[in-house]
């Protein structure tokens, strides 16, 4: 039993602490930033900027000359075009597959939907090397898919599946579908299921309800999903390296080649610049769409 009325020792006001002043606090909290800022500036910002604009022993002008060349050279253009094209394809596939899955996961009353959500998210924790390696087993020359096609009598000799665009698309879709599902899932979960009912009651079919109610309301989540998948596909390395090889070079594998094999700093920096600009462009575009959606 607590005796409420018993006196408690009072904190002694310290003479040394001056009364709180706002300026004082802001100076203190700025101090908390210092270690983080040092690390960020020295370990990330300065090296990145220096690499993009002043690599060792190479004048900056050379980078821009290489950049100009790349944007006209057919081989380099092909790599850029392949990167953008594959990233676009993967983005579309991930949204088209991810949105219905997210919708189903968010709306199904089934006990199993929790399990399926976990199964969809789990791969995010798993090494990309492990995930991509599975496609080598499936698509390789003695792999399961080729053997299956032969067994079924569809083809006589197992076709070349590895080192194709299809292989890269499959690999990247596997990699980024979970991200698309999560983004769409949190968007769908915020839409009142009563709105679907209301639309149906007013005469809207399932598909119509999807188009005029659910999709417009989840657009911000879909845009986030598309942005993450596109940026991820443009910058992914493991998948194009293992599944595309040297016959399907993308910007990332090309960059590694310039930096490591040919040690061509100007080309490496120019490639890095293109990659970075692509990612910034898509991020900017997506926040622009997001802002427009918020105001309208």
């Amino acid at each position: 039993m607590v005796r409420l009325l018993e006196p408690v020792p009072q904190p002694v006001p310290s003479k040394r602490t001056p009364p709180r002043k706002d300026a004082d606090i802001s100076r203190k909290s700025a101090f908390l930033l210092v270690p983080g800022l040092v690390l960020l500036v020295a370990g990330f910002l300065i090296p990145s900027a220096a690499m993009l604009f002043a690599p060792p022993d190479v004048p900056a002008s050379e980078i821009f000359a290489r950049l100009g060349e790349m944007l006209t050279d057919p081989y380099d253009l092909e790599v850029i075009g392949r990167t953008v094209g594959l990233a676009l394809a993967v983005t579309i596939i991930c949204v088209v597959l991810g949105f219905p899955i997210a919708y189903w996961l968010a709306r199904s009353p089934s006990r199993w939907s929790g399990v399926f959500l976990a199964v969809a998210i789990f791969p995010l924790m798993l090494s990309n090397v492990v995930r991509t390696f599975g496609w080598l087993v499936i698509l390789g020359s003695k792999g399961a898919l080729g053997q299956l096609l032969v067994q079924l009598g569809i083809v006589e000799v197992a076709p070349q599946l590895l080192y194709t665009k299809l292989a890269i698309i499959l690999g990247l879709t596997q990699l980024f579908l979970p991200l698309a599902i999560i983004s769409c899932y949190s968007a769908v979960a915020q839409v009142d299921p009563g709105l679907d009912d209301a639309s149906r009651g007013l005469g809207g079919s399932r598909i119509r309800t999807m188009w005029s109610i659910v999709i417009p309301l989840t657009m911000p989540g879909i845009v986030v999903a598309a942005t993450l998948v596109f940026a991820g596909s443009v910058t992914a390395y493991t998948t194009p390296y293992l599944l595309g090889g040297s016959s399907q070079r993308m910007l990332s594998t090309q960059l590694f080649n310039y930096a490591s094999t040919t040690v061509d700093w100007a080309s490496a920096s120019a490639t890095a610049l293109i990659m970075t600009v692509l990612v910034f462009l898509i991020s900017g575009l997506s926040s622009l769409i997001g802002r427009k959606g918020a105001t309208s």
Partner: protein
Amino acid sequence: MTAAAELIGVTQRFGSFTAVDEIDLAVPSGKLTTLLGPSGCGKTTTLRMIAGYSAPTSGTIRIAGIDSTRTPPEKRNLGMVFQSYALFPHMTVADNVGYGLKLRKVPSAERRLRVMETLELVGLAHLADRKPKKLSGGQQQRVALARAIAIRPKLLLLDEPLSNLDARLRVQMRAELRRIQAETKLTVILVTHDQDEALEMSDAMVIMNEGRIVQQGSPQQVFPRPADRFVAEFLGYENFLTAADGTPLTIRPEHLHIVEKGHGLDATVVDVAFRGVDLLVSLDVVDPSGATVRLLADVRSGATLTPGSGVTVIAPDDHLVSLPR
């Protein structure tokens, strides 16, 4: 008179739990019918089956005489107002109201006309271009109503449409809903757990308990003759006693009279609560069967009653309701 909707032996089970149990119901055309009952008794479930959002486990639902048990909601042409209103947040008020008409491919000029007409009916024509988020609760409620009415539904289904409004607005909207029903001559099913609302608004009331219909009829029929103790309690009968032959009886507090001495039941005053115009008196009463029961009497203030004093309680025969044993 034909029934606008008919439920025949309709049951809804969720796993092993029976939410609606073999109900039979005929909803009269052009009238306002209320579904009344305590929380969880299956009102929403019943309404959702009528609307087509969930198929009954067994039984038949007829709408305008046609078996519609398995018809999807979008093919039923019913108007529904949800408890949460479910207004489309990305559309203006006018677009919300016009949504059903657009789906019915009503040409845009006529659509605008009908939208404005409906908005005028609910008194919101001046807010046509607003987004739902910028409306008050009462205004949102009217938009939801307008949206349901605009498609000229065969049946208007309202799931506790007034329960999210504050007390004053709720009373105001009861009259408003009645006026709209009278003007449109729509068949309305209104779900509520508020007996005052049901009594005031219904042409016919249907009282549910634990998934079953326990009584139905007009308020004038139901109110003075509750079918059993559950309905009696639900309608505000608070006094339960037993006749000499063992029949359970009930009477409302305002129908008990207290006299100092006379022919009636012997009683002792337990407590007196002052309520302005009246007094609420608790009494220990010896009922006709000889048992002592605690009763409440609602009497005009001015009487001087002190706890502990002995009095006589008169329960007029024409107000005593006998209940099944």
